[in-house]
């Protein structure tokens, strides 16, 4: 057997028998992914939707509509210009924007079907659940306005009067429709008139109209929603698990770094390295075997976690080949880092301390603890320096971010570069440390 394989298989066998090591390499990342995945998915469904309403009408009607929206517990309204709002929706900071166009208040209550009140909505088409929900809230608010009007008889009669005038003047209505509409509006007017009288003279009954119900009038009562494009399609994870699993994989990577860096020192201290140095194998292959074992373990951790994520939580793998490259490069990078970390101390305690300190900082800056989106700007800038971030982005790039090769390349390149650097520097420092 090739010495490197023999060495690597031995290390993997040892890792599999080491419960503590296995816990940090595989179980802890899984717990992390499940925990944070669950926390953030819960929040996604129930949170208040942030939307921006742009009132271009500035009429009494649009203002009262706005006021009603503000009362909705499911919405949080923000004031932005249309351009700002569009950009915010694209970036996912707002769920949607909503334009109340000029003339909204003029379009009367019982407007002819071919000219219903229009509300423009801008929403990411992939937000299917929110889209329906939002449409429902807006419609409800609209009808709540109608209800108010219906209950206010004076207002109602003015409204009917206005509608009547508008309907008679409308050019796009047939004379039959006009007649029908006139009949209906007149009867409604009478109804309200009698209603007003009824308050005073209880006896009087409203005259029932002669309007036929046989033919359904083609009149739409609710507002018409017109969905606007929001520009280039915004990519977003389908679930919180598509974010939590890539981060958890990076936890697995740093656990591999720690486990294998420690095993190098253990072999140095116990004397098994000495024994290997006497064996007829190239000197470099001893360390290379360790790096290879780390690489295999790291790759296996990636694959297992991704399989689990995909089978159980439906985490997508939009670009499987890119994902594979991302996995291999990430595993390689952290194998190199492992080699460097192993050269940082002579005792197990020293290396364990050094490795966790370095790894935790990398993890914190790289988005393994604070998600990249939630970082303050100074931290986001520093995070570019962390291999953890490169790893997360190259995995997410293939899972849900729709990265092109050009977008992936910088991260893959950095991972490869740091991997090579770590291997060379770590090997050099360890050879020097052994005094020949």
């Amino acid at each position: 057997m090739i010495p490197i394989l023999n060495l690597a298989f031995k290390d993997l066998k040892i890792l599999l028998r080491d419960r503590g090591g296995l816990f940090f390499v595989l179980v802890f990342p899984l717990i992390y992914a499940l925990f944070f995945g669950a926390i953030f998915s819960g929040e996604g469904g129930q949170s208040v939707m942030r939307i921006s309403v742009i009132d271009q009408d500035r009429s009494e009607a649009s203002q009262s509509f706005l006021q009603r929206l503000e009362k909705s517990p499911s919405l949080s309204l923000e004031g932005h210009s249309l351009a700002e709002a569009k950009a915010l929706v694209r970036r996912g900071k707002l769920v949607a924007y909503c334009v109340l166009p000029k003339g909204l208040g003029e379009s009367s209550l019982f407007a002819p079907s071919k000219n219903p009140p229009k509300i423009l909505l801008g929403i990411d088409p992939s937000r299917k659940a929110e889209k329906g929900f939002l449409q429902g809230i807006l419609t409800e608010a609209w009808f709540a306005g109608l209800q108010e009007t219906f209950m206010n008889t004076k207002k109602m009669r003015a409204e009917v009067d206005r509608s009547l005038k508008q309907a008679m003047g409308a050019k796009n209505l047939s004379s039959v429709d006009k007649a029908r509409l006139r009949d209906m509006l007149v009867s409604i007017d009478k109804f309200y008139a009698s209603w007003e009288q009824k308050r005073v003279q209880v006896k009087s009954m409203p005259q029932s109209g002669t309007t036929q119900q046989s033919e359904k009038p083609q009149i739409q009562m609710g507002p018409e929603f017109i969905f606007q494009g929001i520009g280039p399609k915004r990519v977003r994870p389908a679930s919180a698990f598509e974010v939590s699993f890539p981060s958890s994989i990076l936890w697995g990577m740093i656990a591999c770094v720690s486990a294998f860096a420690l095993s190098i020192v253990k072999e140095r201290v116990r004397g098994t390295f000495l024994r290997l140095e006497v064996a007829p194998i190239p000197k470099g292959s001893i360390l290379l075997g360790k790096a290879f074992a780390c690489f295999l373990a790291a790759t296996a951790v990636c694959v297992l976690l991704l399989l689990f994520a995909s089978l159980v939580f439906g985490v997508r793998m939009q670009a499987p080949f890119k994902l594979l490259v991302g996995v291999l490069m990430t595993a390689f990078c952290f194998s190199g880092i492992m080699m460097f970390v192993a050269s940082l101390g002579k005792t197990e305690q020293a290396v364990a301390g050094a490795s966790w300190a370095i790894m935790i900082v990398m993890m914190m800056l790289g988005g393994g603890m604070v998600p990249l989106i939630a970082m303050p700007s100074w931290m986001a800038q520093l995070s570019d320096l962390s291999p953890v971030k490169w790893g997360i982005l190259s995995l997410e790039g293939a899972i849900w971010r729709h990265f092109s090769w050009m977008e992936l390349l910088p991260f893959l390149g950095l991972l490869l570069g740091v991997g090579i650097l770590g291997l060379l520097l770590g090997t050099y420092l360890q050879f020097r440390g052994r005094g020949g």
Partner: protein
Amino acid sequence: MIRAEGLTYSFGSRRAVDDLSLSVQRGCCFGLLGPNGAGKTTTIRMLTGTLVPDSGRVLMDGALDPSQKESKRLIGFAPQALALYDELSARENLAFLGRFYGFSGGALRKRCDEVLELVGLRERAKDLAGSFSGGMKRRLNLACALVHAPKILFLDEPTVGVDPQSRNRIFDNVKDLKAQGMTILYTTHYMEEAERLCDRVAIMDQGRILAEGSVAELKNSYGGTPILRIQVQDQEEELFPIEDPMAEIPRLLAKHPDLVSFEFDRPNLEQVFLRLTGRKLRDQ
């Protein structure tokens, strides 16, 4: 078989081995005897090619450099530290090492069984090395050095921290291996071991070899004369330096009919060491 010339090695400013030369004949068991810190381990590491000397050179089997692949196949090495993987079983430890020497499949299994048998661990083959006692670990440590049937065996303090049974087993193993013609370099700070096992002994202190020869030669040159202690009834113990005890005893009995007991202190390597350094081999 092993030849070292002018080996020197320093850890920083501390000189661990100082201009050391030695030569071990084929089939000889060569003992390197010295107190802790004498430089035995450092010497072995240079001889096995795991440490490059600051100056001097080592030749294996006439011409080979110890770091060459060919000479590495000749060498078996049981380090002073217990160089075992605790998480692997005894057999897995052996098989792992055996694969580096081209063993595989049935041949590997057979070879592992042989060495396990040799050190008396055949029944414990499947147990994890981590579950072994100190003595068993020492024996497995020895087995690991033998798995590829080397021609030259380096044993660095192979009996440290070992129970008497394991110790005897290891002694027997070493004797057997010597009988099979293996060349052995054995380091220890127990003079009894060197006396019992080694054909030639080099006494080492502070990185240097102070004296070298067969055990008898060393005793003759540095041990001083044997001492006879006799106890006669109602008298103080008396000490006589004597050259030839065999000739002396009949005369002694004739002279002291009321002899209670007598003891004969032969010179040992302890005394040799004391003579050479003015210190004891171990701090008691």
